[in-house]
């Protein structure tokens, strides 16, 4: 029904109170279409992670709305937000994403277990792990694989519940250049194949080459919003 899979409307995020008040985001608005591959860029401290937390429903905006799939998330309670995150969103974090006490396979199927749709989840997880070249690491524990491998596992976990939006905060920030390149190519190919929306925070937009949209943040505001046509 919605043209946009994501609408961010007049979002403020204020940390602290009184003298220590910090506006991490200030009156920020933009929209994202289904299937778009979008980057959020900006200098350190500009508010990228804060914005991603708002979109990912990990934290609530001080003011304004985040609308996902036509649903105003500001009206959801804590449990509904959990369910929403589980079914609509997939997360890839910068640092150790995996539960070290679960195996790779268990980590990947966890969103489905939470969802209560365990049927076929192991098979689907195996197929996805094959796609990212980790079919031989499935039974290792989360802390027994390399950072690059963990990042690829996190990608498959983000996809297993077929979310509308996949969010990643500097997914390559922790990786060497070869692993980073592999990860970028993987994300882009998955975006083309699955037609899911990808929103990625990065320091290095050039690493990603051609994308649908780039939003540049500065001091919590949108400095620039570039569409595919204008991108080089």
């Amino acid at each position, binding site marked *: 029904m919605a043209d946009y899979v994501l609408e961010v409307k007049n979002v403020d995020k204020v940390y602290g109170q009184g003298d220590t008040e910090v506006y991490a985001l200030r009156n920020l608005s933009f929209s994202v279409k289904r299937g778009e591959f979008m980057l959020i860029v900006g200098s350190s401290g500009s508010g990228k*992670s804060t914005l*991603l*937390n708002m979109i*990912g*429903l*990990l*934290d609530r905006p001080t003011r304004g709305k985040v609308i996902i799939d036509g649903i105003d998330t500001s009206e959801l309670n*804590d*449990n509904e937000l*959990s*369910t929403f*995150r*589980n*079914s609509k969103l997939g*997360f890839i*974090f*910068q*640092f*150790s*994403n*995996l*539960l*070290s*006490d*679960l195996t790779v396979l*268990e980590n990947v199927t*966890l*969103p489905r*277990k*939470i*969802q209560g749709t365990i049927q076929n989840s192991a098979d689907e997880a195996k197929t996805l792990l094959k796609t990212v070249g980790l079919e031989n690491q499935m039974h290792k524990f989360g802390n027994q694989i390399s950072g690059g491998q963990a990042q690829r596992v996190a990608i498959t*976990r983000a996809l297993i*519940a077929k979310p509308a939006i996949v969010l990643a*905060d500097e997914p390559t920030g922790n990786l060497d250049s070869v692993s980073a390149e592999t990860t970028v190519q993987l994300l882009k190919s998955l975006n083309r194949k699955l037609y899911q929306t990808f929103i990625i925070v990065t320091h290095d937009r050039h690493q990603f080459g051609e994308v649908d949209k780039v939003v540049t943040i500065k001091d919590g505001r949108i400095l620039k919003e570039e569409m595919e046509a204008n991108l080089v």
Partner: protein
Amino acid sequence: MDYRAQIGIRFITRRRGSLIAASLAVAIAILVVQVNSVIFQGLYDAIVRDQINYRFGHVYITRQEDFITKSDFMLVNWLERIPYVQAAAPRIDSAASINATIGGKIIRDYSVPVIGVDPVLDREASTMYQTVAPGGQYVSYRDSVVVGAIVDRDLGYPQVGDTIKLKFKDQFGQDILRRLTIVGITATAGSVGLDNSVIMNIDTLREILDRPHQTQSILVKLSDPTKDTDVKDLFLAAFPSNADKFKAQTIEESAEQTLSGFRSGIALINLVGYFGMMSSAFAVVTIQMMQVTSKTRDIGVMRAIGAKRKDVLLVFIFQGMVIGAIGAGLGTVMGVTYTAYAKETHMTFQGSLPLEVKYNWTSIMQTDIMAFVLAVIASIYPAYKATRLEPVEAMRVG
């Protein structure tokens, strides 16, 4: 398996240090309760056992404020027809005085309790005869006496074959002197028997006291001790007349004076056990809090990918259940091992009184369940703390 159970179990079992510390705390609390139970319940039961064997039998029959005048032969026969009754024996408690030499000083009128027993029936209803030191025998012929070890010491260690002179008062207040021959010396562990008394033939005592055919008490030994109230009730129903004025007591009632003090002592000791349990619960709280802190990121990740607060709560409750179960298992093994050790080595209290060691499975189960439940309860606060963590924790750097 439920994913919350799986994660809870993994969290704790893959942190061996925390698991060992927490379950040991639980196990040691159980062990403390078990050791207390072996020693103090064992002591209590030992005292009950000795009171039954030496003094009261399982059921103790007396007559209110007076001697029993009904034929003891008839009463014993009547009692022995009850299927649960193994034996019954009449006794008379009296007192006498002796001229004794204590610490080189001659003490006139050293007063001792005197127990009159039936030489044949008493061997059936009481194990008193087994306490006679080697070289002696139990009361047999009319003028024989068995002297308690304490009395023997106070009299300057007379031997078997020696005679002692006892001064009685009959029921009319007349002094009666009797010379009796020592046939044995009785000594019991912990002096819980008749070590401070003199035991003699009941018929001789009846004659001295001028109470022919009278009896003061009847000890009833049961083949099935659980039937004591039944036997008591049967007896009182059969001899209800006001003239008889019989009194029948179970061991709990007859030994009440001796036992009540012990009971409150045991209650106090149990309190120590419960304090142990409480401190183990605090140990579980501390270790669980550490677990929650070290798993902050994992909890954030779980929340980010859709776990609800309730799910996080369950993870740590399951963790508490693992601690409780392993702790209870370990504690039971340790406690039962100790009990077995106490039983095998015939553990004694203060080196003399042999403890009555039993495997009390009901109490072991109760302790286990309590320890388990406490471990789970102790996990509630840390688990609740975990649920207060926000999903943004997953994004935290490092």
